[in-house]
């Protein structure tokens, strides 16, 4: 199983590097560390994401999701979104996913057989998914220009100051509303978890 994973990983890396070459129009020779890192991260993420939906045991699904989120955070860092990356780990990995694990343990769910819906439905879903993906890609392929190089970003881009500045000026209302939303969520969760549903 480990081997399978590794095999998939290598395959995917090749794939994504190919993607780099094909989409990015980058000569095979000029592939550098950055590309490789991206390819590695991407493939790992895809693997773990697959892990979420193929694992029979909910716990394992949850863990693969945690891995995905963690890698996503790393990718955020590579995109100069340090703060968001940290928040990603704290909020998602640190809070939300723990909550999931916690609930899974609380309900003491072991592997449920069958983990998936009927084969026919499964196939249909896969088909629709693929169609969707192709459609999406069809639109993503239009040229958007390369990302500005690491040096090109304005100083302090992605730092907490900038985010806060943005947050407390342009999106202040949204911010406040969010706080209310959280409050409501807390109350709702408590109420729901307290009493039996009628």
């Amino acid at each position, binding site marked *: 199983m480990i081997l399978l994973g590794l095999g998939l990983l290598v395959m995917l890396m090749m794939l994504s590097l190919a993607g780099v070459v094909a989409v990015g129009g980058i000569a095979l020779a000029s592939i550098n560390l950055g590309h490789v890192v991206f390819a590695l991260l991407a493939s790992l993420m895809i693997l773990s994401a697959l892990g979420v939906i193929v694992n029979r*045991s909910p*716990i*394992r699904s949850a*863990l693969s999701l*945690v891995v995905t989120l*963690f890698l996503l955070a790393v990718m955020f860092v590579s995109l100069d979104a*340090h*703060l968001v990356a*940290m*928040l990603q*780990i*704290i909020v998602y*990995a*640190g*809070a939300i996913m*723990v909550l999931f*694990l*916690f609930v899974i*343990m*609380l309900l003491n769910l072991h592997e449920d057989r069958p983990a998936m819906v009927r084969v026919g439905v499964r196939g249909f879903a896969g088909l629709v998914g693929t169609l969707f993906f192709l459609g999406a890609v069809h639109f993503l392929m239009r040229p958007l220009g390369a990302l500005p190089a690491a040096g090109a970003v304005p100083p302090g881009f992605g*730092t*907490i100051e900038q985010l806060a500045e943005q947050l407390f000026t342009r999106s202040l209302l949204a911010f406040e509303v969010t706080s209310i939303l959280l409050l409501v969520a807390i109350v709702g969760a408590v109420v729901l978890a307290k009493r039996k549903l009628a």
Partner: protein
Amino acid sequence: MGIEVGIATIRALVVILMVLSLAGVLGWIERKGSALIQDRIGANRASIFGVAAAGLVNTLMADPLKFLTKEDILPVRADRLLHTLAPCVNLFPVIVAFAAIPFGDAITIGERTIQLQAIPLNVGMLYVLAMLSLGVYGVVLGGWASNDRLSLLGGIRGSAQMISYEIGMGLSIVAIVMTFGTLDLQEMVRLQGHLIHGWLPAWGILYQPLAFLIFLCTGIAESKRVPFDLPEGESELVSGYFTEYSGIKYLMFFMTDFAEVAVVAGLVTTLFFGGWQIPYLLSDGFHFPGGAALLLPRLLVVLLQVAAFMVKVLLFCWLQILLRWTLPRLRYDQLMRFGWRGLLPLALANMLATATVVLAVGGPT
């Protein structure tokens, strides 16, 4: 490029080694300390050619060897992968958490300045929090994967406790962050180098005594040590979430425990006790309030500062170990009440107060 990578690797290695060795040493301190407190001799069995080195041999060589050579038992119908993963997941974040903690001022070699800090981050504080918040998984997994109700209970207790106390910890940190106005730990330490009225070192504890207490409590709770050690409370759940572990994995859990102690100590030092700062020691030597000065070579200064950092950290480790033999274990409901109804409101109030003051008079910067 290459050199940069090299330096980065070296810094990372330094940190890792520091943590691990600290963990080891703590193991020794703990055992000898306990012995001291309980009026025993403590770890004194193993010796090389009769040299027991006050139990150092025993704790730093014999015990690890023993653990390494022990059989690794896997309970029936346990989840092999997760069971193996758990200890690593447990140990990993603690070690990396240390990476953001500066253990010395920047040194300049040639035209290249090197931060004495594994990863200089402008969001260092958040980074540490993030890593600590990852610590839960080890516990949860350990508890779950062992397929044993005691472990599971320990795991659930542990996770609940950790997420509960993270909040209080976060809030107390928010207060100190407000005070210094930065999330960069190195920066914080630098700010703590200032003097209030020219004689009083501007350490965090002077600004945030309450935050310090809250942080200490929550930190100890995070590292699941007495009096918050219910997840592994041996009188109720044999060893909590690592009941079903043995051999190297067990050792890793143990290491984690000590590493966490070290991290907490490191954080307390960095946030509240001036990190590597020594009062009146500036980059070129001592400048006492009286005007008296004692100039020292830069390198020596840096070494002194690193030493100071280590000393402070060790002191706080010792404090936690003392606590272990001083305080009784809480009951679980007490623990939760203390966390939610005691520390959380306190931290909130402290945060609000700090916010008001900072708004009114501005921080110390």
